[in-house]
């Protein structure tokens, strides 16, 4: 295991005019580590995620990423071409709404294969074999490979989106409420699947969620955000079992016990 982080974030802020998106966020993320970012709507967690994934440029602050050659690159100084290349090779982004992350009018197989073709794979048979393999890893039957995601249930679409993102073997995956909008039974299956994939592949992930149970199941570390600021961070079980900040205590005490 390397002693260098994968991502270094320092004093990241994003303002929308005078409104605060996120304010002065700093953290390091190591390979294989899952960081949960929790907070209510409007707490800035999605703004933070969008800044980190360079879908949004921050107002100030820096984020540097350790490329596969071991060199750190300042994300916001990279050219758009480099960032987009990173985005479709070494990174993944799982949207809350699968329709935002999938091509709804092309088949499941092509959805999975697109990234491979984007990085220059030109062998149909191999692309298809890889797609079949990934569909099975996300528990989608092989005979659905030529169906469009429009014909899939919400849970299947989300699993397809995950396969589409992981096919190039990314080292960092961003997830925005990956289980939002799914039935609880479907959620459990997806969480379990994600947990397994993250462990097996040694992925680092930043998961934005308002669901503390999701955070507990998926992440080792957690940041609690409120009004754009990080009010508490630490080991996930420490933050949940011994919440220190007033807001975290409120969050934890608001969980419904089943």
């Amino acid at each position, binding site marked *: 295991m390397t002693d260098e982080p994968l991502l270094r974030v320092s004093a990241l802020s994003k303002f929308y005019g005078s409104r605060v998106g996120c304010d002065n966020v700093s953290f390091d993320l190591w390979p294989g*580590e899952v960081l949960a970012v929790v907070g209510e709507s409007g707490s800035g967690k999605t703004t933070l995620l969008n800044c980190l994934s360079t879908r949004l440029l921050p107002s100030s602050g820096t984020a540097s990423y350790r490329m596969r050659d071991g060199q750190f690159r300042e994300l916001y100084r990279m050219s758009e071409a480099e960032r987009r290349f990173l985005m479709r090779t070494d990174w993944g982004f799982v949207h809350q709404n699968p329709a935002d992350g999938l091509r709804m009018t092309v088949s499941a197989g092509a959805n999975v294969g697109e990234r491979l073709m984007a990085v220059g794979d030109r062998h149909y048979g191999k692309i298809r074999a890889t797609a079949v393999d990934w569909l099975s890893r996300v528990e989608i039957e092989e005979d659905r490979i030529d169906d469009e995601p429009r014909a899939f249930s919400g849970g299947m679409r989300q699993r397809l989106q995950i396969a589409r993102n992981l096919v190039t073997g990314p080292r960092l995956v961003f997830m925005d409420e990956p289980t939002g909008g799914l039935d609880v039974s479907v959620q*459990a299956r997806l969480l379990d699947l994600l*947990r397994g994939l993250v462990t097996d592949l040694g992925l680092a992930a930043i998961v934005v969620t308002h669901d503390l149970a999701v955070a507990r199941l998926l992440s080792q*570390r957690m940041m609690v955000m409120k009004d754009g600021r990080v009010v508490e961070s630490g*080991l996930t079980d420490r933050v949940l079992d*011994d919440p220190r900040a007033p807001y975290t205590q409120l969050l934890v005490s608001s969980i419904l016990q089943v």
Partner: protein
Amino acid sequence: MPTPLVVSDVAKSFTMHLRDGIKLPVVAGVSFSIRAGECTVLGGPSGAGKSSILKMLYGNYAVDEGQIIVNHEDGLIDLANASPRTVLAVRRQTIGYVSQFLRTVPRVSALDVVAEPLVERGENRETARGKARALLAQLNLPEKLWALPPATFSGGEQQRVNIARGFITEHPILLLDEPTASLDATNRDVVIELIAAKKAAGVALLGIFHDHDVREAVADRIIDVTAFAPGKLAA
């Protein structure tokens, strides 16, 4: 052999922000050390802070004051001020923990729940499963349950899975939070055997045992936690 764990002047309180910020002191002035090859037992009535101490040692509770020095990979680390990443490394390599209750994960079989800590330490999955099978058999968990997720198991069955998960690794320090609470006599004896084996292997154990017989059987030393009651130090 160096002392594996030294606790000095540790204090812990809870601040209840939702109740006008009232401060509930739990323990203060906690100082003790544990030794390799021994089972140290935290004694005292319920609410004295035994569980809180264990949780601080595992990094599960934050520490207000003091130091928890652990011998981790031939270096000394203060767990009270360690980064989350360091705490995770300590948990992976140095300190094992058997909690009171098993936190189940949907769809993961009992066998894999038990094998997981070994796999995390880099053990081959099949080897880890082999060890898990041996432990579960020793703890008399019916074989037909091994492939099932433990969520629907009885309390005693879950606890045996939990114990197996805690004992499968070779962590030099093992924390035990009432591991025998919901076990029958036969399985209590198995746990006593397991603890004896750990001691023989040079593991430093620290536990809470409400069951008098078990405590008598395993304890080399008893630390009375009431000595760390916060009132004794502060106002």
